[in-house]
């Protein structure tokens, strides 16, 4: 059962990668010059339903693929998504605290993931902060993620079989 959920989670995040690179971003859907980071959001949501080790491995694999499909140094998204998944694992009990807590959590974790990528990217020569609009590229996708979470959380929850898996841990 758990193996099935890991496969589902991987398929979801891989689908997210394809959608992210073909539907969102510059010259695609990009309201106010930014787009949601669907991949990060899916990793975050999946981490709320998977067991800890698979959740971290799914995040790492997805991040590595994001690095390979994007133009960044390999390992940066892997690092950022692993941290996002780990923090999600530590705070996911708070899901029961209501919609506002979940929304705040999605926002904070999205900002964390994006900011980590920006900082790690700067350490590895990506010059992310050379962009005068860097803060917008961190905050706006995170806000969009909160909106997208309204749609994606119920879908992932249904695919993962509700909260059963999360409660097993």
């Amino acid at each position, binding site marked *: 059962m758990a193996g099935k959920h890991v496969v589902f989670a991987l398929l979801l995040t891989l689908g997210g990668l394809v959608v992210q*690179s073909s539907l969102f971003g*510059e010259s695609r859907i990009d309201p106010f010059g930014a787009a949601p980071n669907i991949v990060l959001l899916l990793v975050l949501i999946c981490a709320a339903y998977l067991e*800890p080790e698979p959740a971290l491995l799914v995040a*790492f694999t997805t991040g590595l693929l994001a690095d390979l499909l994007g*133009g960044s140094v390999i*390992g940066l998204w892997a690092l950022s998504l*692993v941290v996002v998944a780990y923090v999600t694992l530590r705070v996911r009990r708070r899901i029961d605290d209501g919609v506002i807590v979940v929304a705040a959590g999605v926002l904070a974790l999205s900002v964390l993931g994006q900011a980590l990528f920006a900082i790690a990217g700067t350490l590895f020569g990506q010059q992310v902060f050379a962009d*005068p*609009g860097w803060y917008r590229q961190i905050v706006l996708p995170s806000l969009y993620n909160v909106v997208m979470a309204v749609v994606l959380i119920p879908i992932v929850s249904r695919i993962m079989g509700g909260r059963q898996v999360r409660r097993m841990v």
Partner: protein
Amino acid sequence: MEPLRRFDRSTSLFIGLLIVSFLVATIDVRSQGAGLGDTLRDGTQALFAPLQEAASVVTRPIVGFVDGISNIAGLREENERLRDRVRELEAQVQDVAGLQNRLEELERINNLDPPADLAAITARIFSVGISEFDHIRWIDRGTDDGVVVGHTVIDEDGLVGRVDFATDSRARVRLISDPRNGVGVRDLDTNETGVVEGQGSGPLRLRMFNPEQSVERGHLIVTEGGRYAPGIVVGSVAESASAEAGFSLITDVTAAVDFSRVDFVKVIVGWLPSDFTTPDPLEPPPEPPEPFQGS
């Protein structure tokens, strides 16, 4: 917070994965994107590109629809006297208009004469970067079509970027807006040279080599040669600037290309950059395809 003891194994795994990520990133930076990183990118692209191309085709109407919606929003005040029926019809027409724009862009780009009659091939963008921090485009042409790393990429308005990774059938273009990109340029009005650097979502930054010669708003900036084919329009000076004594002259340049609207590009395959190196120094550079036959 969940108790730490529950996460003993996962914390170890977490730390392990962090170390692996740092190691991978370090190796990739040190190998400058070549070696294992190149092979992995090649394989991942081969795996994902068909999916991305299919998704791009499927999602094009959605993108067109959203584009249309934003256009309608911008004209709402002007059109508020129109009846609801007309609005509905406009919404339906947006999809058709989107297709028409793409067709016109393709026609324009096929009529474009590359600088100095250099051979060029048309390519379609099928995928963009994974995040807001990526300033890249994937095009549906690769080494089989004569595209190699270093080739200059343009559209009908001017310079788009440079190929920085290529597989058999696809290539990655790094836009000139990428902060890691620098373009040797010339001010057409003063003939002074300098460098244009990307600033991501911000305007391009121009640094002139001769700080004594001021630059005026509207001056046309073109490529100087070297890493990019010469004579291609990069943009125009956004703000006049003159250097204070002893300091370099820096100002902003508005890119000629609207990167958010580029769908088709031309890769100038008839020109190789100064830093081009063949994989085997004994082998000559790849033969460019037949010269571009634009009307």
